[in-house]
C-alpha cells in the first residue's frame, strides 16, 4: 500500500535520499532507523506531501503523492495519522479539542465526535485529562494526546517520527507499547527512530538508512548503526 520507487531528494544540492526503494504492506510495523540527517524525516515528509521528490514516485494506496497539488493533500493527510517528536498540539485547544479537531476538519458528524473522542482518549489513558490544555500536560501525556489525534479518524497508517525523542525512558516505553497495540489492532505503523533499545527489543521489520541510502531491510531487524 506504500511504495517508494527510485526516490531521490536533495536540499540545496545536498543529496538526502539517494534512489530509495521499498514497499510497506497493510498491517506492517516498520522501523525507519538512521542517525540524524540520514533521511528518516524526509521520507515522512514525502509521504505526507510536505515535500516533493526530485526523482521517483511515492505511492500511498491509490494516491501518487508526488503528483498531488496542494489542494489535493488534505484528503490524503486525513488517511494518515502523524505523531511528531515535538507533539505538535494546538496550544489553544484542550486535549479533547485537539483530538476532535482532526475529526471536525474531516467533516464528521458531531454525534460521532462526541462518542469517539472520549473513547480514544481512554485508550491512550487520558480519560481524566480531556479538559486540560497542552501546557498543563507532561511530555508523555502530550504525546499520548498526539497519538489519540492520529488515531481518532481511523487512518490506515500511523507515522510516528521520533515519537520518543523528547521523553524519558518510562514514558518512551509507554508510547512504544501503545503504538504496538495500535498495530495489533490492524493499523499500519511506521516508526522513525534512532533508539537502539527500542528497535532491538520490539523485533519488527527494520529499514536502516545511512547517508540517504537503504543499507539494510530485514523483517525482524536489529539496530546496526555504530
Amino acid at each position, binding site marked *: 500500500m506504500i511504495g517508494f520507487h527510485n526516490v531521490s531528494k536533495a536540499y540545496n544540492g545536498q543529496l538526502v535520499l539517494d534512489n530509495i526503494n521499498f514497499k510497506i504492506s497493510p498491517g506492517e510495523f516498520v522501523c525507519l532507523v538512521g542517525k540524524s540527517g540520514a533521511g528518516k524525516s524526509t521520507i515522512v515528509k514525502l509521504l*505526507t506531501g*510536505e515535500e516533493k521528490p526530485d526523482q521517483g514516485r511515492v505511492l500511498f494506496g491509490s494516491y501518487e503523492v508526488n503528483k498531488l497539488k*496542494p*489542494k489535493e*493533500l*488534505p*484528503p*490524503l*493527510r*486525513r488517511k494518515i495519522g*502523524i505523531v511528531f517528536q515535538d507533539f*505538535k*498540539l*494546538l*496550544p*489553544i*485547544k484542550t486535549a479533547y*479539542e485537539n483530538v476532535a*479537531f*482532526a475529526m*471536525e*476538519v*474531516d*467533516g464528521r*458528524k*458531531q454525534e460521532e465526535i462526541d462518542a469517539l473522542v472520549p473513547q480514544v482518549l481512554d485508550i491512550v489513558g487520558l480519560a481524566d485529562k480531556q479538559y486540560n490544555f497542552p501546557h498543563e500536560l507532561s511530555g508523555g501525556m502530550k504525546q499520548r494526546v498526539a497519538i489519540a*489525534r492520529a488515531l481518532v*479518524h481511523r487512518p490506515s497508517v500511523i507515522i510516528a517520527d521520533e515519537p520518543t525523542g523528547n521523553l524519558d525512558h518510562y514514558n518512551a516505553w509507554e508510547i512504544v507499547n501503545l503504538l504496538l497495540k495500535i498495530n495489533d489492532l490492524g493499523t499500519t505503523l511506521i516508526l522513525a527512530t534512532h533508539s537502539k533499545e527500542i528497535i532491538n527489543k520490539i523485533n519488527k521489520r527494520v529499514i536502516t538508512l545511512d547517508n540517504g541510502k537503504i543499507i539494510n531491510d530485514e523483517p525482524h531487524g536489529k539496530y546496526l548503526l555504530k
Partner: protein
Amino acid sequence: MATTLSRIIKFGIQNFLRNGWLSVATIAVLVLALLVFHGLIVFGVISQTAVASIKDKIDISVYFKDSAPEDEILKVEREIEGLAEVKSVDYVSKDRALDAFKDRHKEDAVIAQALAELQANPLLASLNIKAKDPKEYPNIVERIQDGPAINVIEKISYAQNKSAIERLARLVDTFGNAGLAITITLALIGALVTFNSVRLAIYSNREEIGIMRLVGASNKFINGPYIVSGLIYGVIAAILSLAAAAPIIALASPYVEVFVPEMNLQSYFYGNLISFFGYHLLFGVVLGVVSSAVAVQRYLKL
C-alpha cells in the same frame, strides 16, 4: 456545509477568546486606527464648515451713481442674478444703507448730529454680490463692467479688496487640497499599521497553521477562523473607538466653536451617531477581515 460553517465560526471565536492578549493588542491598534479615521471625518467636516463660512464672508458691492433710477438698479440686479457663477444678490437701497449706517453709529453723537444736518441721503444704493466660488469674482466683475450697466455704476468694491479676496480664495483652495492629502495619508498609515499587527498576530500562529495542515485541515478550516476573528476584532474595535471618541469630542467641542462659530461638534457627533457607527463598523470590519485574509494566505501554500 452548515456544520463546516458553524465549526469555522466556533474556531474563530475560540481563537479570539483564547489568544487573549493578542486579541487585546490587535483590537487596541484597530481602535487607534479607527480613532484616526474618525478624526479625519471630523476634521473634514470642520474644515468644510470653516471654508464655507469664509467663502460666505467674501462678497463684492456694486455702488450705483446717485442719479441711477431704482428700476435701472433692479434691472441690473436681475441680470447679475442670472449669471451662473452668482450665488446671491442683495439690493441695498439708499434708505436701507442710511438706516444701517445710523444703526452702526448710533452711539456716536457727532455722526448723528452730522447726519441730522444733512438735507439729503449721502449714501449710495448698492448690490451685494456673493459668488458660488470666490475664484469667480474677477469674472463677475468683468461681466458687469462689460455690460450696459456700467453707465449707472459709480464703483465696484472689488478693486479695493482684490488682493484680499484672491488670497482668501487661494487659502480656501489650499485648505481643501491639504485636508484631502492629510486624510488619505493618515488613513493609509492607519490601515497599514492595522494590517501589520494582524499579520504579526497570525505570524505568531504559523506553527499552529502548519499543524492544522498536517492533520488534514483544508484551507477553509485554516483561514476561516482567522477571518471570523478579524470580523470580531472589527466589530469590537468599532464599538470601543466610538465610545472613546465621545469624551474627546466633548472636550474638543468648545475649542472648535471658538474657531468656527457655526460648528457645534458635539451635537454634530450625536446627531450622526448611527452613521458614524456605520462608518466605524465598515472600516473596522473591512480592515480586520482583509488583513486576516491576506496575512493567513501566506501560510496556506505548504
